[in-house]
């Protein structure tokens, strides 16, 4: 009876699937993406419209000014007279000075060579697929500065180029490189000293670090420039660039010490204890157990410190060194190139931005890479 009823009133049952219909237009594709990411609420809609309006106000006129209407070549600002846009001729005409300062044109292959050597030396340190990291690091601190000094300064058969002729972006690179190369070992020593069991040593290191971290770099540079000569024995003559380098190195070594201390603190205490338990001396345990681990996790922070230091090198204009910013400053007051503040400073900003941004991307890459293979 029941079966009979069922066969009679059997409802329709579909035996095959319907073809899938596409999701609603409003949640997929460009429209869905825009709804979710640009217009998810009234406030967001307002912000989006304001942002696009801002971009519309800024980007097209800037492109027009910087590229379409721009004058690219010329020998003075009169050559830009017919153009409405930027006068990049100031950059192209004085490019050599922006990069090398007053370094003689015939000798400019020497800094270039040093830069290539520096890159080759840096490769094993920055990229772990290339072998020989330790040797490269040791050479960078000991041999390389001598090689660089020989090529850039001259002597022993090469024509001598005195330091007042060094300038431009090259000078920024030299100062940042020297300061970082020497402040890293100094910073490691200070960080170890700060954590030392000897109270006098650790007090001294704390005082030293906090002093340099507490004062602005500008005062340090002026001090190095004005006071350092007083500290030296009578008749000892001190190169202006060397003074700035001493100031920069001491200053950044304090920051480096704090960075390294962060790395040391991140290591579990058991590492030191285990090293001592198997009979390593203090320096052996530091060299073989502690530092390799601590430095590895601090490399991103060291790169960040280097970026800061690199930007700070432009401060040397206060003591009259002819770095990139100073070249730009004297360029805008040059009678041939008057009224080109925008072009000149935008170019300088671009140079620094590209260099610093590339380094910070590298530090992000390192952070991600080190994050995965670190303990626990």
């Amino acid at each position: 009876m029941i079966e009979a009823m069922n066969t009679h009133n059997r409802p329709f049952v579909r035996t095959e699937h319907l073809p899938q219909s596409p999701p609603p237009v409003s949640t997929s594709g460009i429209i869905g993406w825009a709804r979710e990411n640009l217009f998810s609420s009234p406030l967001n809609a307002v912000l989006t419209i304001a942002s696009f309006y801002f971009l519309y106000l800024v980007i097209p006129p800037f492109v027009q000014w910087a590229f379409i209407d721009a004058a690219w070549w010329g020998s003075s600002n009169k050559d830009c007279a017919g153009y409405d846009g930027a006068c990049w001729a100031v950059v192209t005409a004085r490019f050599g000075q922006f990069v090398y300062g007053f370094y003689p044109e015939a000798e400019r292959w020497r800094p270039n060579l040093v830069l290539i050597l520096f890159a080759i030396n840096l490769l094993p340190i920055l990229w772990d697929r290339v072998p020989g990291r330790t040797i490269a690091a040791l050479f960078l601190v000991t041999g390389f500065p001598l090689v660089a000094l020989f090529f850039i300064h001259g002597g022993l058969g090469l024509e001598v180029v005195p330091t007042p002729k060094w300038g431009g972006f090259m000078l920024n690179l030299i100062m940042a490189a020297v300061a970082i190369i020497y402040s890293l070992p100094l910073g490691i020593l200070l960080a170890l000293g700060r954590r030392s069991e000897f109270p006098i040593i650790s007090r001294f290191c704390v005082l030293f670090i906090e002093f340099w971290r507490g004062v602005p770099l500008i005062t340090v540079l002026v001090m190095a420039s004005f006071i350092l000569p007083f500290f030296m024995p009578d008749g000892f003559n001190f190169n202006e660039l060397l003074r700035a380098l001493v100031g920069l190195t001491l200053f950044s070594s304090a920051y480096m010490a704090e960075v390294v201390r962060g790395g040391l603190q991140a290591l579990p205490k058991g590492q030191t204890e285990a090293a001592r338990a198997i009979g390593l001396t203090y320096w052996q345990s530091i060299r073989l157990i502690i530092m390799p681990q601590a430095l590895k996790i601090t490399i991103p922070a060291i790169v960040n410190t280097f970026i800061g230091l690199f930007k700070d090198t432009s401060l040397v204009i206060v003591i009259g060194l002819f770095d990139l910013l100073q070249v730009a400053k004297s360029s805008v007051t040059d009678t041939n190139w008057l009224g080109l503040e925008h072009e000149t400073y935008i170019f300088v900003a671009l140079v620094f931005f590209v260099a610093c941004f590339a380094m910070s991307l590298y530090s992000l890459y390192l952070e991600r890479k080190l994050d995965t293979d670190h303990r626990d």
Partner: protein
Amino acid sequence: MAVGVKDEGTPSGGGARWWYDPKVRAIIFQVAFVVALVAFIAFIVNNTVVNLEKRDIRAGFGFLSEPAGFEIPITGVVDYSVDKGSTHGAVFLIGLQNTFLISAMGIVLATILGFVLGVLRLSNNWIVTLLVGSYIEIVRNIPLPLQFIFWQTAVFIIFLPKVRDPISIFDTIYIHNRGLTGPKPIGEAGLDFVFYAIFAAIGVVMWLRKWARRRQDETGKQFPVFWTSLGLLVGLPLLVASILGFPLSWEYAELGRFRFTGGMGIPIELFSALTALTIYTSAFIAEIVRAGILSVSRGQTEASHALGIRHGPTLRLVIIPQALRVIIPPLISQYLNLTKNSSLGILIGYSDLFNVFGGISLNQTGQAIEIIFMSMSVYLCFSLLISLYMNWYNRRIALTDR
């Protein structure tokens, strides 16, 4: 280590010779260090004394009471005039005041801008996140000295009108490429009482906050503290002033043919330095704020909503207090950085401590050692105060930590 010591006649007591004793080693090592340090310092002091004598420079702080003889654009509340023979000591005070002025203004503005940008960076709006992200990356990766010079010489001086043809706001405030000129307040008798009223209002507000909190703890009743405080802070001084018949008059600036006479001016250097400092520091603060908000786990919001707390109070009472714990220590160190960075004012001629004192006074007197160490100790004192505060703050939040 002690293996080689065993078969040689060991001294009484231990199994090792005395120089393997860590305590003895510690003493010897530190004594050697101190001796080396003292010798180094003596060497430097000796050289300095010889050099000073040779160059005929008289060491000491006597120069502070010598007349300075140069004009300073911003003198503020310090009574300074070249004609009256104001001293280098007064110059120091002016520099100190101007450094504090720009640091305080920069800190307030950078905090506001940084918080807004940090919150915007976290929004789910693609274009806003992109814009704020690019702003932060661009500003952080360009050297601050360049930004100082850029705002001064490539923006303000070029885009603002000349003094002869200023932007005028109600014919009282004028904006031009040398700065801002406005009316100068002149206090009359009775103005002191208005200031007393302001202090009294602040005192009452502080008491009111305590009282309201205690009452809420005891009875659960809330009191509109914010609006009452605002009313008190604005109302009380206004009331006193109106009773006294507004003891303040304004001296308006008059535009002559080439320059303004009378009134009060704020030089363009202050705006350039302030803009550069604010924009640069706000990028760092935005990143700190973002990290702070991200550090509060989502479960906190969900738990708070589950308890029936609305969105606004959740943000105010649950999220922000926890985020602040992460935000404040790095924020304070950014404030310290901003204060130190204000010394870059020397690049554009803002009359901060390091410009007027470490720059002009130094050139005039030649007392490099005294002047540089005085300037440095100002910044050092400031950072010492900040780190004392930080230690106190860290201890305080450590107590409330679970």
